[in-house]
């Protein structure tokens, strides 16, 4: 295997694993739920993205024929990570999980009113 390619792959693999680790470190280390949410959604997504790109390059150069289907998981993770983060933040606001900064009460009240309306309908 080409030496340059090997260096590129090693860098991608180590960088991806480091980002994954830093994302989880944020999950364990930061002070309140809302800031903890940032680490996994960003760090981990890009970390796994890097690893998947490394895998795509590795199998494209190794076997006959190119292998791009790792891009599918990368794309899927990049679409779903914000959605699950958004839902988690919504659930935490709904449960009034403690935060370092004051929660936006007005928004919560509006949300709860909407919620009550929703339930009184059905």
């Amino acid at each position, binding site marked *: 295997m080409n030496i340059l390619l090997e260096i590129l792959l090693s860098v991608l693999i180590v960088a991806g694993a480091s*980002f994954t680790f830093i994302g989880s470190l944020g999950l364990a280390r*930061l002070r309140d739920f*809302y800031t903890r949410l940032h*680490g996994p959604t*960003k760090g981990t997504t890009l970390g796994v993205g890097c690893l998947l790109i490394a895998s795509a390059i590795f199998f494209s150069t190794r076997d006959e024929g190119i292998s791009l289907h790792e891009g599918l998981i990368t794309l899927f993770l990049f679409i779903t990570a914000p959605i699950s983060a958004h839902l988690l*933040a919504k659930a935490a606001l709904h449960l009034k999980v403690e935060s370092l900064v004051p929660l936006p009460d007005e928004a919560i009240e509006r949300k709860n009113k909407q919620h009550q309306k929703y339930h009184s309908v059905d």
Partner: protein
Amino acid sequence: MQRFLPHPLLTVMLALIWLLLSNSIAPGQMVLGILLGWALPFFALQFWPDKVKVHKPLTLLKFTYILLHDIIEANFIVALRILGNPDKLRPAFIVVPIDLNSDFAMSILANTTCLTPGSLSALLAPDRKSILVHTMDVGDIDAFIHTIKTRYEQPLKEIFEE
């Protein structure tokens, strides 16, 4: 056209995804992918009644480039903040007013704010006029709102509305 091909963009996307999933570009897989891409939107029509139209493809390309660039930049920023002193962070909830009309553009904007500059969209106001964003470490709130509005909202408005 409208009746036989409800979502041309979705059809192309599905065909491409099928080719990626089967990991080959054999003619048979191409035909099957196009067939699936044509048939599946009829089932999804119910959940997605609005049409998505791309008015300016070049702006879309530019926006994608900005997005990728910002995702990588944001990751380094978030990594530095995690490795730094957690007590020095200045998190905040910020209400960002938006004036997008289409649902699709709005969800793209919410996802964009999630992946980019150390922020996270939390709640869409019921009147659809603002989103609540949580930021990890922000100094100047007005400048942050200005960045979101000019860097992400303006191009999205040009691409999907106008």
